Every structure is written in C-alpha cells, then in structure tokens.
C-alpha cells in the first residue's frame, strides 16, 4: 500500500458529540491518486480520526478509578497532570495516555493500590503513527483488575528519534514476551527488559515489519505466460 497520508495540523475537531483528534488525512487509495484515474479512488480524501481527550465526568467506574489513581500518585509525590497527558473515554473503554518518564510509577500504583489492583497485564502492543512527529511510536498496555472487574488501557508515546520506553517486566512479569514482540514489530526499545531479542522474525532480520513504512515484501506470482505483481504493487494507474 503506497503512502498517501498528508500531515494536517493536529487538533481537536468538534463534531458536536465527542471530541476527535485528526491524526492524518489519506489522499487516494490503492496506488491511485489525482484525476485521470477512472476508478475514482484517486480523489478519495479520508481523515484518520482518533477519539480526543474527554472531560469529567467520564461515566461508569472511570471517575472513581481516575480519582483513586490521582490520589495514589499524589501520595507517591507525583502530580497527576505531569504523569497523565490525556484521558480518553470512547465506546465504554478508558485509555490513559501516560508520559514515559512516569510510566513505572503509574504502573506500580495501578498494581499495588488496593482500590485499583490491576494485577493482570494481558497485552503490550505497538502502534506507529508516522504523521505525528515526536509521538510516532505508541506502546499500548491493556490491564485487567480481577478484584474489581475493571479494564483500563495505558498508552505511552515515544519519538522515532529516541525510541525508548521503560519496561514493565518488573511490575508485571507477563509483559516480557509482549514487549519482545513490540520491539520486533515496531522497534520500541524497552529499557530494563531482561532479554530484548526478536521473537516472531528470525534473529538477524533487519527492520521492523509492522511499521507503516515497511513494505509488504511479497514477490510476483508466476503463472503460465504471465506474472502477477505482489498485492501492494498492483492497481497503479499512473
């Protein structure tokens, strides 16, 4: 898939209902762009929108949760505004954007505080937003509290120039292999991880496959008398 996204100034767009952040705007699709292309895909303009920051009250158990967390962080000597950048409530799910310097403190409080008790970290994965300068790589941590039956998501960002995020293996041992996978696929280096090696690709593989600028890597398929190019090389009308 050819890269057709353009940078649009990031800001909250008011749709009247919920705040929305436009991350990028994609022009054209399937390799076609501009006019002269009869499929019509060339004129397609599609903004990529992520849900924006929400305001209190969040609804459900989210208010209680965020209050507990703010109190716990204040007790630990960390004001909540410096640790948590943004709180997003969308479709019944809570996402906390945490600054990477304070990630370990927030994680420790989430795990140990009796009112929070997020014992299970069942996923650490990555996202790549190439248009979002200085916040290109995100690491998304999904947490589950068995005692209180709650779920929460932490999102930590880092720029491509300095792709380091503190590792959560000291807090939750299950983050170990997930962080290896995130390193393998996105290139985010987790500081403090016991064994940061590739887990899905062979050990000497160059590049990080799930980044947006990594090609699909297919080969042309040979039929009798013709070859068909790989899926991301097809349908170019230029």
């Amino acid at each position, binding site marked *: 898939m050819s890269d057709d996204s353009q940078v649009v100034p990031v800001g909250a767009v008011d749709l009247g209902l919920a705040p929305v952040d436009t991350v990028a705007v994609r022009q054209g699709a399937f390799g076609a762009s501009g006019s002269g292309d009869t499929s019509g895909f060339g004129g397609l303009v599609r903004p990529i929108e992520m849900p924006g920051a929400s305001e209190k009250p969040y609804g459900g158990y989210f208010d209680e949760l965020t209050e507990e967390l703010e109190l716990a962080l204040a007790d630990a000597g960390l004001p909540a505004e410096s640790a948590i950048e943004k709180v997003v409530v969308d479709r019944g799910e809570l996402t906390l954007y945490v600054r990477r310097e304070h990630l370990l403190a927030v994680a420790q409080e989430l795990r140990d505080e009796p009112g929070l008790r997020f014992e299970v970290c069942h996923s650490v994965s990555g996202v790549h937003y190439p248009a979002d300068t200085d916040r290109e790589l995100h690491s998304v941590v999904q947490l589950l509290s068995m005692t209180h039956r709650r779920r929460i998501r932490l999102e930590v960002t880092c720029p491509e120039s300095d792709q380091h995020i503190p590792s959560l293996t000291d807090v939750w041992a299950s983050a170990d292999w997930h962080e290896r996978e995130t390193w393998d696929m996105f290139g985010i280096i987790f500081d403090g991880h016991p064994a940061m090696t590739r887990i*899905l*690709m*062979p050990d000497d*593989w160059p590049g990080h*496959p799930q980044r947006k600028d*990594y*090609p*699909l*890597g*297919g*080969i042309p*398929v*040979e*039929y*009798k*008398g*013709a*070859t068909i190019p*790989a*899926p991301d090389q097809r349908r170019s009308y230029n």
Partner: protein
Amino acid sequence: MGLEEQLPSGVLLTSVEKLAGYARKSSMWPATFGLACCAIEMMATGAGRYDLARFGMEVFRGSPRQADLMIVAGRVSNKMAPVLRQVYDQMPGPKWVIAMGVCASSGGMFNNYAIVQGVDHIVPVDIYLPGCPPRPEMLMDAILTLHEQVQDAKLGANRTRQVGELEQAALQAPATIEMRGLLR
C-alpha cells in the same frame, strides 16, 4: 539402498524393484510436520472416518529418524525454515515430501515478508497438494499418488538411466513463463 543397487539391470533387478517398492509404499511412516490449519485436516485424515491406518500410515512418528514421509502441512514462516530443513536432513533415505495445502506448495494467500513462498524453496517436493485446507479425501489421493510413484520407482542402474532421461526432458521443456495460449 546399499546391496540392491549393485545388482545388474535385468529381471532380477526388476523383481527387486517391485518388491522394494511394495514394501516401501505399504508401510510409509509420516513424520509429524503439521504447522497450521492443514494439520487439522491431516489429523482428521488419520482419525476414524478417513482412516490412514488402512495404508499402513497411522504411526505418525515424532522423531524424523524413524520416518519416511514428511507431510508439510501448513505455512512455513521464515523463522521455521531452518528447522524444517534440519528435520528433513535428519530423516534417513529413502524419503519423500508432500507439500500439503497451498501455503506449503506456493505460499498460498500469504505473499509477504514472513512466509516462505512454497516449501520447495527449502526441500525437494514429490507431491504438491493444493487446497485451503485440502479435504481428507484429497490428502489421501495425494498419498495414493505418491504410493504409485514409489511402487514404480527404479533402483540402481535403471534409476541412473531414468535420471538421465528426466534431465534431458527437463532441459528441453519450455519455461513456465513461455507457456502461453489457451490451456484447457
């Protein structure tokens, strides 16, 4: 085989070929190489309804050292490729390979950085079996085709002659890209 290949070509060698072919095909032991979804169909073929035991093949050996046949069932990733080659190398001859499913035959629906586009990039394949996944009846058809091939296989001097003929035919045959026109 050591002793049989020293025999001179003639009636004796032909009879030995037939006997050896019969013995090899009727108790061919597969090595378990189920990687993905095709493995489920392979297990179903070995189970009660589509029985592989009637062909002498219900013993799926865990160790390649006791196996004749490697059924590569499923997609082979780039990380799995050296493992597959090592297991193939550790099988004693004579050995055969069935590429089961489209992923093993040609990379299947996965034309990307992670999947080897056909297991014949790594090991020599005797039978390619398309399907996603192939039904148990299709796998049995592939196995029976292989059995016929094994029954008709030549030994010793006959085999060297046959290899020479096959090589000449392959050198004269047109390349795949040159075969144009309507093929029905």
